């Protein structure tokens, strides 16, 4: 059997610190879902705005059905990611619950606004809700662009009552850029740098 080297107290402390740092630097978020959702929602916002505003063609709103395809893709992606993940972290788990709370709140908000026929409130409330998981994810992951993105959503939500209803979808488009697309590309960059460094 191999003889184990005897460690001094200092070496023990250094080993502990270095291993904790190695586990911390195991950054597994490549921003893919932020980018996919960001581009799909941005595309839907711009297409539905153009169809309604320039061509008065309200059937263009069916473009939003494409969201269901992304939901199906996300289901497969998360399943695959979970089965191939080498670790499960506490932050990853909390982050998952934050986004679950967002989805449940979103469904309830859309349901309530539709039943109460308060359609004009959907976009401003959507911006309020978008801000919550984005901001919290930024705090949990200690990633500033997401924190700024979340605050950006709330600023856009505060502006929404002063903007004509037909332009409110453009506020969603702006929110998607600040909260999902910009942080998504920065997350991708961080993932690539950290994984390159780990090789």
């Amino acid at each position, binding site marked *: 059997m191999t003889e184990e080297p005897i460690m001094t107290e200092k070496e023990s402390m250094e080993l502990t610190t270095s291993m904790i740092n190695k586990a911390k630097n195991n950054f597994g978020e490549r921003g893919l879902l932020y980018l996919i959702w960001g581009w799909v929602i941005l595309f839907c916002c711009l297409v539905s705005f153009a169809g309604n505003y320039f061509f008065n063609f309200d059937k263009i709103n069916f473009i939003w059905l494409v969201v269901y395809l992304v939901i199906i893709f996300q289901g497969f992606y998360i399943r695959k990611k979970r089965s191939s993940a080498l*670790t499960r972290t506490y932050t990853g788990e909390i982050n998952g619950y934050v986004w679950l709370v967002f989805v449940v709140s979103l469904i309830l908000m859309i349901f309530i606004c539709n039943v109460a026929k308060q359609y004009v409130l959907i976009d401003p409330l959507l911006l309020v809700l978008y801000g919550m998981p984005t901001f919290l994810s930024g705090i949990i992951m200690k990633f500033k662009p997401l924190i700024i993105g979340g605050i950006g959503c709330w600023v856009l939500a505060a502006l929404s009552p002063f903007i004509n209803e037909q332009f409110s979808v453009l506020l969603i488009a702006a929110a998607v850029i600040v909260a999902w697309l910009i942080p998504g590309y920065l997350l991708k960059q961080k993932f690539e740098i950290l994984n390159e460094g780990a090789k």
Partner: protein
Amino acid sequence: MEFKDLDPILHSQLRLAVMSLLISVKEAEFNFLKEKTNATAGNLSVQINKLKDAGYIDVIKQFNNNYPQTICKINEKGIAAFENYVKALQSYMSL
């Protein structure tokens, strides 16, 4: 000043490395521990079993896509032992 004995189970390079990694995550796969510690599979497996026998970690063996998978997770006894070990180290180092 009071000195505490260093836990012999934890005062070993590889076992301490494994415990330090596991304290930072909820659970980790065997290959993750192997990659981060640069240990051989055989040695790592022996040390994981020692930690398991001491009651510091839980080891779950399962299949993932038809491949065997070993998941390790630090438990409450392990967290307490790790905290005591670090406190003991600190008391020695503050000499």
